[in-house]
């Protein structure tokens, strides 16, 4: 049944192309909602075994080479499918006003979503890799056609980084296939690969996937890509695409090559810690609101990678929970920055925004951004806290020293989040008027005018935006108050993985 998430989304993509443009957004919304409903039904069904990677569909596909169309489900993939559905629905709601080339837009968007569902459900290595690569090109078009700042550069950079990671994965997949003689992930995870192969194949595979999860120093695609992308593109990148890398690193690299994982995990833990602190420090110095959020994504994904490298139940479960949490929070932050602010003010420059007194002009946006920032900082009661505390417990067991460094990183996260929050919404608009006079396209007179009666100057937040934001805020609060609802499903699946035994 869960397989229908993939089919419904791809069917939606095709129908969007065939019907007139006026229907495009409705069909996209319908397809995404249908997929989400299917996920929810599966989520609350008691009879689904989430402790093991249980086969859903299995059909011979290319028997000559032993490939099967094989989908399976466990708690980890279900969690990620849930966040995919959430991010997809809200991304579509936040692009409700896309009118130029709308058919293409929603076509590419649904391809990204469908491919991501495919990655999270694949139990066949080749199929997983196919879906993984399938997501690359739609991202390019989504950004290069519909993006904003420096879009062609950002799109090409992102695509080339993804494809570079894909080339590494290609090599790792071939190595696993040739040595293990099968594409079945469950079978391969029982196979004893020679140590020498694991020694080189694990880092190749893990690094290849981790490029997409924004591992330092291969993270630079993420900020530029996020900034260049249209709102929905950033939301999908932060909400889903970065999770593809982390999920596949866990499902494939760590699960197949446990010995190689043990040899290399400290190296990757160091990279993850550097990523957390470095990205947070860089975010502190950014003037463009989207760059701040882009770097915060890298920092948060650093937590995911660090959690994975702890190799204990807490760390890895926390990492999966953090994937969910960041998917929701990142999407929310980008929605505020991209649609609620940028679409209305045509600037993302923090100094320029500071002069606009947006708190009065866009109260709903201010409220949303406060919630998202609080969740992003890891305030208790939001999903970010639940995830990061679980990860840190795991890290404490594996690398006690890292906890101190990461703690400093969390302070930086709080610092840059509060700075962005204050500058964008809660500045009085007088002190920085002189500063913002330097900002392009905004004369001082215009600023004072807009700050005086900003309510009239800016279009109010629309209903689709409110629904989308409410959906994401509900998700982060719900999981923040009751993380058990996800952890109960994640933990058995993590415990079943070989590298823990």
């Amino acid at each position: 049944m869960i397989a229908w998430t993939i089919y419904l989304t791809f069917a939606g993509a095709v129908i969007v192309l065939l019907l007139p443009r006026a229907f495009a957004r409705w069909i996209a919304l319908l397809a995404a909602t249908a997929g989400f409903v299917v996920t929810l039904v599966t989520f609350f069904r008691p009879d689904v075994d989430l402790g093991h990677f249980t086969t859903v569909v299995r059909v011979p596909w290319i028997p000559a080479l032993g490939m099967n169309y094989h989908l399976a489900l466990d708690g980890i993939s279900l969690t990620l499918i849930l966040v995919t559905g959430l991010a997809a629905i809200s991304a579509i709601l936040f692009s409700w006003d896309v009118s130029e080339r709308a058919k293409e837009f929603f076509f590419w968007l649904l391809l990204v979503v469908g491919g991501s569902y495919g990655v999270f459900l694949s139990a066949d290595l080749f199929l997983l890799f196919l879906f993984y690569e399938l997501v690359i090109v739609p991202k390019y078009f989504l950004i290069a056609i519909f993006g904003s700042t420096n879009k062609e550069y950002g799109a090409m950079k992102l695509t080339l980084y993804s494809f570079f990671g894909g080339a590494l994965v290609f090599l790792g997949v071939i190595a696993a296939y040739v040595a293990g003689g099968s594409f079945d992930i469950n079978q391969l995870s029982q196979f004893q690969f020679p140590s020498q192969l694991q020694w080189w194949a694990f880092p190749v595979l893990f690094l290849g996937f981790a490029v997409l999860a924004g591992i330092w120093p291969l993270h630079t695609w993420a900020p530029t890509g996020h900034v260049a992308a249209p709102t929905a593109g950033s939301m999908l990148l932060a909400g889903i695409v970065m999770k593809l890398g982390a999920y596949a690193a866990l499902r494939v690299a760590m699960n197949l090559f446990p010995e190689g994982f043990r040899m290399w995990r400290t190296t990757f833990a160091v990279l993850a810690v550097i990523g957390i602190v470095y990205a947070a420090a860089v975010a502190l110095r950014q003037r463009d609101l989207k760059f701040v959020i882009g770097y915060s994504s890298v920092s948060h994904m650093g937590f995911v990678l660090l959690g994975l490298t702890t190799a204990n139940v807490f760390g890895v479960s926390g990492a999966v929970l953090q994937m969910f949490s960041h998917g929701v929070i990142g999407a929310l932050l980008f929605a505020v920055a991209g649609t609620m602010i940028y679409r209305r003010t045509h600037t993302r420059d923090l100094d320029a925004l500071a002069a606009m007194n947006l708190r009065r002009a866009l109260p709903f946006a201010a409220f949303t951004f406060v919630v998202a920032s609080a969740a992003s900082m890891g305030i208790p009661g939001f999903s970010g806290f639940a995830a990061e505390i679980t990860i840190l417990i795991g890290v404490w067991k594996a690398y006690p020293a890292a906890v101190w460094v990461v703690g400093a990183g969390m302070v930086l996260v709080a610092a840059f989040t509060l700075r962005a929050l204050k500058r964008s919404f809660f500045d009085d608009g007088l002190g920085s008027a002189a500063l913002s006079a330097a900002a392009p396209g905004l004369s001082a007179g215009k600023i004072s005018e807009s700050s005086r009666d900003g309510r009239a100057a800016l279009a109010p937040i629309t209903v689709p935006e409110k629904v989308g934001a409410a959906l994401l805020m509900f998700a982060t609060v719900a999981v923040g108050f009751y993380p058990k609802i996800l952890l109960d499903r994640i933990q058995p699946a993590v415990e079943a993985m070989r590298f823990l035994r």
Partner: protein
Amino acid sequence: MSVRPGPQPLNLFVSYLDLLKLASPEAIIVLIALAVLTIGLTGDRSRTFPGIVAVVGIVIAIWTTMRLPQHANLFGGMLVISPLNSLFKIVCLALALATVPLAVSEKSMRNPGEYLAMLLLGTVGLLLLVGSEELLMIFIGLEVLGLSLYVMAAFDKTDARSAEAGLKYFLFGSTASAFTLFGISLVYGISGTTALNVIGLKLAMGSIPPLFAVGIVMTLIGFAFKIAAAPFHLWAPDVYQGAPIPSAAFIASGSKVAAFVVLGKIVLVGFAPAHGNAAWHSMLPGWSPILAALAALSILLGNFVALAQTNVRRLLAYSAVAHAGYTLLGLVAGGREGFSATLFYTTIYALTLIGAFAVVGIVKRETGGDDFQNFAGLASRSPFSAACMSVFMLSLAGLPPLAGFFGKFYLFSAAFRAGGNHGLLWLVVVALFGSFVSLYYYLNVLKAIFVDKNASETRHSSPGTHRFVANATIAVLAASVVLLGVLPDALAEAIAKSVP
């Protein structure tokens, strides 16, 4: 009709009726070529009628090829019928079939009858090449094919570029043929026979004399020219850019497929004992390290030079060099799996490239050029050809769910598996790196199509029927590229079964 070892007198008591039956595809194509030529001579300048005759003829030839017996061997390997040969005769005929509409919809073509006749005679060359396992006959096939292609490349008499392309192709081609002939003569001198399987048997018995190595290298040079592997690729950019579009498409597709089939048979059957080893730490002299070096050089050079191109046809030419490199990987790996992967890849590559050239043809007719700026805004002018072009480009880049993705996977996994202890890992890494680089320039083409604004105004749209023919062709080709990517099993299994 069995293998006759040794240079004994050939059994010439073959009933000519039997011969005609076994060679019926070739015979039909020759007849159709003459018929098309006659139609062209009668003064009928319409492009459609000779085209229809050619299509019907090729379809009949495909049908007769399907009805050939499973196995037959005439004149010590000169004409061999086996599942593999029949399959690739069909592939070559299908590629010729896909080229005919391109020629018909080409506006500048002044003598369509003559042109189609040359195309069909070239197809006979392909059939002879594919259907033979004997060096002399292979050489004759190469020459029949080559002579037609030289004429086809120079066919547009109004365009100096076309003449240049034809002359360059002819000069390089004839030199390469001389090398091949010299190599064949050395091989014959040492082994005393020209039948591939007998050469293989003889070589396996004794040690391999140094002069034979010279013969191998000379023979390989001729084929490296045909498949445009670096450093024998110098003709390719000018021919791909200058020749009339259907000629370029045919040179890039049919000629390449046949060359790979024959090259595979020569090295894997005839020169099998001189295999050598291309593994990184245990390199042994033989043909496989030579092919490995050619492959690595082609991949690197082709991809890097393609980065700098601003003309789509030149870009396709350099990417063809790179793809020749990938395709050679399967032959270096050797064995059934490697050969099957090579054959699969070269087939889908040929389909993709004909499609890409067909789109280039449409753009050229409408905007008068084939540079990047002529492609700008194609998505808004003609969404259909833009969509098809993106299918072709992304398949070449090796992205799923298109045929190129599976083809690369098949090839690279075959290479990785061969040469014990992952010895060919270096070559796989080079190929993966090359395909990473290649995505940049393929995306640049797509960027021009989808992102850039419509810079060049449309000069003229082609007349309805020609436009329809061209669109139908690219639709069929794009559909087959997608289909072979989603369900590659049909072709992959047919090839794997037929490879001996």
